[in-house]
């Protein structure tokens, strides 16, 4: 049953009509037109849909939209822009840290959450933090180098 839900996404308030059990990913992509977070499994297993809830990384695909009402959600679109890029975005471009890009948005958000909590993680910590994000094209090492670069 649809109801009015108040969301805060990338610093802006939105009121959406949605069933509260609808996934946050579905609402972000199909109600708010924020397409950067991607669907990979819908099961919370691959991390392609990772966004920030306040400062913590969550899988939007298995987060009911009702559960994030009133709390700040950040997507890739809110992480940084061409005019004001996040250091991770600059680093990902420098390292050419992707191929197909399907896992990229999720990785950037997961890495952003890590850096908010630990500004200078070592390599083992970076790999551990990103373990929940799957990549099939095999750019893992480039991503790790990019995260390290963004910390400097």
């Amino acid at each position: 049953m649809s109801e009015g839900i108040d969301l805060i996404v990338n610093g802006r308030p939105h009121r959406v009509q949605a069933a509260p059990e609808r996934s946050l990913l579905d609402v972000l992509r199909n109600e708010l037109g924020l397409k950067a977070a991607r669907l990979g499994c819908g099961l919370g297993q691959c991390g392609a849909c990772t966004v920030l809830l306040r400062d913590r990384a969550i899988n939007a695909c298995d987060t009911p939209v009702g559960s994030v009402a009133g709390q700040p959600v950040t997507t890739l679109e809110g992480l940084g822009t061409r005019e004001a890029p996040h250091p991770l975005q600059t680093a990902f471009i420098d390292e050419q840290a992707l191929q197909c890009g399907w896992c990229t948005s999720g990785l950037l958000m997961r890495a952003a959450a890590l850096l908010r909590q630990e500004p200078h993680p070592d390599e083992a910590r970076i790999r551990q933090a990103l373990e929940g994000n799957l990549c099939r094209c095999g750019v893992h090492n480039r991503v790790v180098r990019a995260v390290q670069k963004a910390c400097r």
Partner: protein
Amino acid sequence: MSDAALPDSLRKHPRLGQWLQVSAQGGIRAFTGKVELGQGITHALRLIVAEELDLEPQQVEMVRPTTAHSPDEAVTSGSLSVQHSGATLRLAAAHLREACRDRAAQWCGVPRDSVVLEGGVFRAGTSRYTWAELVDAAMLDEPIDPAQAGSRPIGIPSHREQGRPDIEQKVFGEFTYLHDLSPAGMCRGQVFRPAVLQATMDDASWEALALRLRALPGIVKVVRDGLLLGVLAESAHALERSARIVAQADLWRGEVDVPAPDDVPRWLRSQPLETATLVDRRPEAPLPAATRVWQAEFGRGWLQHASIGLCCAIAQWTGGTLQVWSHTQGIFNLRRDLALAFRLPEDAVHVCHADGAGCYGHNGADDVAFDAAWLARHADGRPLRLEWTRQQEMASAPMGPAMAVAIEAAVDAQGRLQAWKQEVWSQGHGTRPGRDTTPALLGAWQVEPPFPITMAVNAAPHSGGGADRNATPPYAMPRLEVVNHRVLAMPLRVSALRSLGAHVNVLAAESMVDDIARSLGRDPLQYRLDHLPHDERARAVLAEVASLSGWGRPPGDRPEGWGRGIGFARYKNTGAWCAVVVDLVVEAEVRLRQLWIAADLGRVVHPDGARNQIEGGAIQAASWTLRESAHLSARGIVSSDWESYPILGFTEVPAVGIALVDRPDCPSLGAGECSIGPTAAAIGNAIRDALGLRARHMPFTADTLMRAVQAQDPD
């Protein structure tokens, strides 16, 4: 250049205007039939054109491939894009450049040698001419003259270092994948099907299910055709609910004969087989009796494609015309089979490529295009978007075929390879659409009346083969026999997966060579070099990887269970050369520590892109080799998500060092698949080095190694 040396794509599409045109703004538009799969080919082709025309890469517009205006280059596969499309674009651009030089010279009455191309503009005498001024329809109508390519390109080498523009777009969340398209009036659909190719649907269950589905809020239509069940809705949420109900309904009945995981070789051999001897090389003089003979068998189970994204398509019917947006690897092949499936003339079907997630072989993109087109007939002319769920993706996408490879090898009294027989048992590695008289689309086999299921086949050996890819080892030996047994049973669909037969064939050959070398007390690297006197480029990549890895100088701080191994192959024996060294530790399971890779791709078009593909291929091969095997049952594929089909993750991926042997005067070779076989082989050989025993059947999981240790099988 002789006709035989012309790229295929040029022979099929000889006119300049099929490849290059001038845009309304005076820039250059380049056309290709090769599609972007995330591998960076679009950028590589852009760099080729920019280089030949002395343009900044961003001044070259790569036109999105569609059947309406792109040259038909069949499928983007086989690591052939730079070889076919790239070579053709290079020749086309050289022709365009020289034709414009000639015209500028003519207009000014100066010798052509005095005309200078600089900054993308021609200077002749005191005049300056742009492409827009010099190029006309008559010029574009000319056949491309490959002789124009003799002159060295003029472009600036540093352009090769420029990053891919799509990478920036993806990092800023600006990139539009097919899955992000939302044409006006779009509705959504889902198709449900049995888990096996042939099944029955219980009519009473279907009637009951249809009632439940139609009662769901948001469901617009429920349709059935044969074994296919389709649901139309306005929202993804409604489709999710319908998927849960269908999953519980247990609608289809069908069972297939599949082997248990440790029974794969026997199963493969016991099926009906089509046997062919591919190589039967005998020396003129009879050989002395072999001094020593080795025999071993290697193999793997079925692999799942398992891209991070899901297959998706948008289809729309307008009267009798079908428009499809797809991330297929072959837009013309898909068009051909959609026309067959829907009984349309080909020119009534239009396929436009849009980007999907990474594609590593024949995935479900073509099947989803059929599903969308089939369901869109019920959408009253609205565009219909259809995306497989993760479970559907894992259940329905073609698998990489299982393989068994037996090798018998003999050496002479000097320890030189004397005779070698490599025998392969595997299904065909191809059920791609567009190559037969009936459609090779999953849904077309499941409607009523169904089109026949097309059995998996292998490409001819001269086209690179299938199961037999790289079954011919690269080493010099007087007697060689290569036999392929094509398994003529397909309980679950199989098709091409990155490197095809090379993954197992190279593992097998390189394991055998390594075992022979060790038995004879020879260094595995030197033994290989000794058997490659005829192939200087092979020796060069082996020397390069040896230098990179410090081969022969193992690290002083080696932990317990440490091992190092080497693997080498020339992809398809006509493609890129690649050698890999792996350092690993065998603890409870295999932990990869470091990979070193040396590759010779001829003239490298985009070095960073090539490195990305080589490393990516190696990591994927490592995942297949250590982790992956589809879990099968009589009722279909059981491994349906990332928990039941785990792949290598961030904490398991080793550091990788890569050296490219750049040969600017040699033809460019594709990078996408050359590291697969050598990586599997290097891992196998490193495990052998670590444990003192040979594991032969992938994946080399902790269980597999435990069983190999228990069944201790001394050389």
